[in-house]
């Protein structure tokens, strides 16, 4: 029994709504120290006396997570305690054991963001997914909006946790119990209502660590901020399989009862810091050094000295473009420069407007705003609406605010694609501002992503339905509120949708059914985690009737999908990707799988994780009919023998990924055989070998 009985209740000034006391959240250490403190009457210098700012800053405290505020995805369904985000609460349960345990927290974001340089190919050079790059190779892969905004190690998933006491953080330790190496950033939320990045991974940090559980505690930035809320960012691109977190520990010095005094000082210090740190400063502010534009001083100087005059023929623009992209550096190296020349007659701003626009279009949003501070000309160029046809505030989630939206609304008159995912946490963006933005600029929107947006309410969604009738893609992941946000029929106005993503979002079934009827061109549909309150058989029947052009369908954890629903799905002949993970629990599949494989010859990706009703005959059908299969997940299916696996490997020539974790029939001695076959057939085979 913990020593929390000694702890005085309600001392910290936390206002978190979900602060339900977990009795074991604090290390007993705390209570012992408090007792000692009382006995020795202020030995540590804190207590009732108000000290000057150089007072002892309380005592060293290690805390485990008290509660989870938000997360982008989890493997388990939210009423469960297996493989869900709630497992990071409290002390580690499995650490230092290594393995795939249900008492930990894995993520399954299913479609991660991707870093791409603006290129001509539809898919990127650096694909990612929940592990490795399998999702980007699947038919349902998406392209990131305004991808140049993303940092090199983009965030795929995150979790926001809070602790009991405010501390000045000195160490954050993350207990990883399976496939470590996904943490890329650690943020802390200070009293000034700003997020500070305490640590960011560099390339060398992600060199794949040993496959063993580890207590990951990187060196944090030195800071004097006070916090008890952390956000951890994850990137799964280097991983072999899911990563799992057992606990998070926050270590630091408490600030005792002088908290308010220090807090005030912190706030003034922080506001200076945040001004300097503000990633995107509106041009009205005179903060930040004037940054030279992309090409830099030396180039225009060289151009001046060489009296460079572009000759504009018909294809002059492309020639110039090619020249600047490819040959400019070579040109500069060949011609050296002497100093002290007469003032230039040609400068960069003499380049045609379109060229400058093209140059600036490679910049990320932050740099674009900085360019606007250089001069009036550059301000005019950088505020041109063509540069704001695609807008993504996802990488700037920590500074996105209503004011920013307001500023962007003035510029983005030709907005086509908008991504406001992750913004608005903790109240920075107001729904009214969003609605205003949408009403002003939303009528030509083709792609809209509002994943994990905390500011969304029912009237925002209503607005989306009314204003944005040209939408081709709508992504509303992670809006699982109760009552469901999506209960307005206004979304049924959208008739041109090709991609609809409702991952982990609650909605009324009737709305979904009417949307399916209305959007005959639907190609990609994601209904993961929606299966509890929705009758999936009805949905499947609707899909078979109205949405026969469907290419990818994700029904992860749709519990109530039965064999009848599966039979409906067999009428979708264009299907290339189908995720039936954890569906069809107890039912036997009957003829369903055979029909599916026969009718959908283009099937490239088939996930049957934990579909326990799969029989050996079904596996034989997969081998016989799955000619185009590239990714196959058979996790947790009984009745798999290594003969069946061999069959599949031989007869599916395009297979790249085969997941056989938790297939208990495969004996230990077969694992070596599997490794051999993996090499022989060049297929990545995942197994849950006991480590």
């Amino acid at each position, binding site marked *: *029994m913990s020593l929390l*009985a000694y702890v005085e*209740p*309600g001392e910290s000034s936390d206002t978190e709504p*979900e602060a*339900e*006391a*977990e*009795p*074991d959240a604090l290390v007993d250490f705390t209570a012992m120290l408090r007792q000692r403190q009382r006995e020795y009457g202020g030995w540590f210098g804190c207590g009732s006396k108000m000290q000057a700012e150089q007072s002892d800053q309380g005592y060293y405290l290690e805390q485990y997570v008290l509660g*989870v*505020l*938000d997360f982008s995805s989890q493997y*388990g*369904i*939210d*009423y*469960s*305690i*297996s*493989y869900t*985000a*709630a497992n990071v609460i*409290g002390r580690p349960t499995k650490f230092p054991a290594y393995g*795939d345990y*249900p*008492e930990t927290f894995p993520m399954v974001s299913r479609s991660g963001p991707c870093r791409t340089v603006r290129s001509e190919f539809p898919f990127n050079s650096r694909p990612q997914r929940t592990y490795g790059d399998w999702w980007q190779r699947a038919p349902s892969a998406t392209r990131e909006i305004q991808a140049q905004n993303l940092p090199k190690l983009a965030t795929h998933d995150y979790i926001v946790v809070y602790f009991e006491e405010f501390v000045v953080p000195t160490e954050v330790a993350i207990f990883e119990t399976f496939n470590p190496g996904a943490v890329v950033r650690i943020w802390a939320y200070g009293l000034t209502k700003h997020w500070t990045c305490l640590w960011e991974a560099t390339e060398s940090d992600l060199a794949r660590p040993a496959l063993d559980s580890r207590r990951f505690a990187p060196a944090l930035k030195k800071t004097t901020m006070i916090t008890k809320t952390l956000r951890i960012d994850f990137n799964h691109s280097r991983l072999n399989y899911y990563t799992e977190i057992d606990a998070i520990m926050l270590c630091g010095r408490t600030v005792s009862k002088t908290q308010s005094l220090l807090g005030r000082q912190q706030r003034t210090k922080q506001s200076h810091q945040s001004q300097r740190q503000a990633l995107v400063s509106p041009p009205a502010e005179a903060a930040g050094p004037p940054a030279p534009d992309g090409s830099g001083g030396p180039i225009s100087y060289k151009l001046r000295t060489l009296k460079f005059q572009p000759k504009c023929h018909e294809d002059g623009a492309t020639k110039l473009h090619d020249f600047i992209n490819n040959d400019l550096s070579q040109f500069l190296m060949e011609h050296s420069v002497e100093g002290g020349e007469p003032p230039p007659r040609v400068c960069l701003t003499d380049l045609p407007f379109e060229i400058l626009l093209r140059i600036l279009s490679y910049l990320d949003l932050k740099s674009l705003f900085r360019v606007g501070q250089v001069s009036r000309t550059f301000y005019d160029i950088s505020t041109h609406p063509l540069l704001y046809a695609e807008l993504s505030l996802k990488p700037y989630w920590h500074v996105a605010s209503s004011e920013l939206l307001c500023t962007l609304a003035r510029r983005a008159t030709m907005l086509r694609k908008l991504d406001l995912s992750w913004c608005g946490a903790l109240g920075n963006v107001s729904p009214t501002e969003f609605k205003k933005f949408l009403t002003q600029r939303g009528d030509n929107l083709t792609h809209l992503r509002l994943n994990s947006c905390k500011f969304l309410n029912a009237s925002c969604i209503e607005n989306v339905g009314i204003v944005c009738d040209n939408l081709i893609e709508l992504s509303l992941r992670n809006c699982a509120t*109760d009552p469901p946000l999506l209960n307005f029929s206004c979304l049924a106005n959208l008739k041109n949708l090709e991609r609809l993503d409702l991952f982990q979002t609650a909605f009324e079934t009737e709305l979904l059914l009417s949307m399916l009827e209305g959007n005959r061109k639907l190609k990609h549909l994601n209904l993961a985690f929606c299966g*509890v*309150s929705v009758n999936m058989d009805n949905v499947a029947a609707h899909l078979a009737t109205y949405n026969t052009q469907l290419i990818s369908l994700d029904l992860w954890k749709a*519990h*109530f999908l039965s064999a009848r629903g599966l039979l409906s799905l067999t009428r979708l002949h264009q299907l290339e990707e189908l995720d039936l993970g*954890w569906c069809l*629990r*107890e*039912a*036997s599949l009957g003829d369903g799988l055979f029909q599916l494989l026969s009718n959908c010859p283009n099937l490239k990706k088939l996930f049957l994780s*934990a579909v*326990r*009703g799969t*029989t050996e005959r079904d596996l034989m059908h997969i081998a016989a009919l799955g000619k185009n299969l590239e990714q196959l997940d058979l*996790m*947790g299916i*009984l009745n798999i023998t290594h003969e069946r696996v061999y069959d599949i490997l031989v007869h599916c020539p395009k297979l790249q990924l085969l997941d056989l*974790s*938790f297939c*208990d029939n495969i004996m230990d001695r077969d694992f070596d055989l599997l490794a051999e076959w993996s090499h022989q057939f060049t297929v990545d085979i995942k197994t849950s070998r006991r480590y």
Partner: protein
Amino acid sequence: MHSSLNWTSRLISRALRSSFSTLLETATGGGGGAAAKSGATKSGAAAGSSGCPRPRFVSVVCGFAKDNLRHKYKPGKYGEDSWFKASTESADVMGVADGVGGWRSYGIDPGEFSSFLMRTCERLVQCSHFNPQRPVNLLAYSYCELMEQKKPILGSSTACVLILNRETSTVHTANIGDSGFIVVRQGQVVHKSEEQQHYFNTPFQLSLPPPGHGPNVLSDSPESADTMSFPVRDGDVILIATDGVFDNVPEDLMLQVLSEVEGERDPVKLQMTANSLALMARTLSLNSEFLSPFALSARRNNIQARGGKPDDITVVLATVAM
């Protein structure tokens, strides 16, 4: 995210072959109450203790696996039986589960199901939506968790869960099958659970059959559990055990042993009693002449039987201390 109402409203599980609608109605009422209660206990802990007495269990466990040689000792299990103990601010919880051995012939380890059930109950007690007045919910949620495991867990087991609610000094119990509990006060049995059987030697059981075998397998829902609630006083002795004990040790003998530890707060003495009870059950079970309660009940069903019934034995013995 976890609000208890969210949890209970999503627990509509047609897949479990019977709806928990009655569970839902009472649970949403009780769940809301529990959330408020557990929120209040933290701040009111200091205040609460001054007023009414807060009882707790002094509890010990002992047992034997039927086949000692094959089963290496693992904490929390005795052969195919399994048990758990947990406590929070507001409650003390204990439980046993007995895996049905018939699954061995299908290649399924019968102890896995019962072990998982108990381990999950233990974890669920620590969750924010734990309701100290509804042990049936605990069993139901634990049963649902089985479906969410990557590793396929099949089999079936009986279960008996007992919760002591500190606020009200009441004990709430839920029992499915032939495990059970007995409460002794002042040399008399004051409460006792009833054995639930479909027919002789086939108790009620929670089960998860292999897919496709569903209709052939006996499967009872957590709703069919027998529930009881009663107040307890200082010094009460509570015994929770699997059928290995109740089938081998006659009731008067059990009563004799249990009355000796009434009011006992020393865990060592309690452990000694539990050990002797378990040993008694083991010895009697291996005795082929003795007319055990099992033999008597078999005779009532026209089966000529003698001697004890060899089975796994699990004894969880507790006294109430205020």
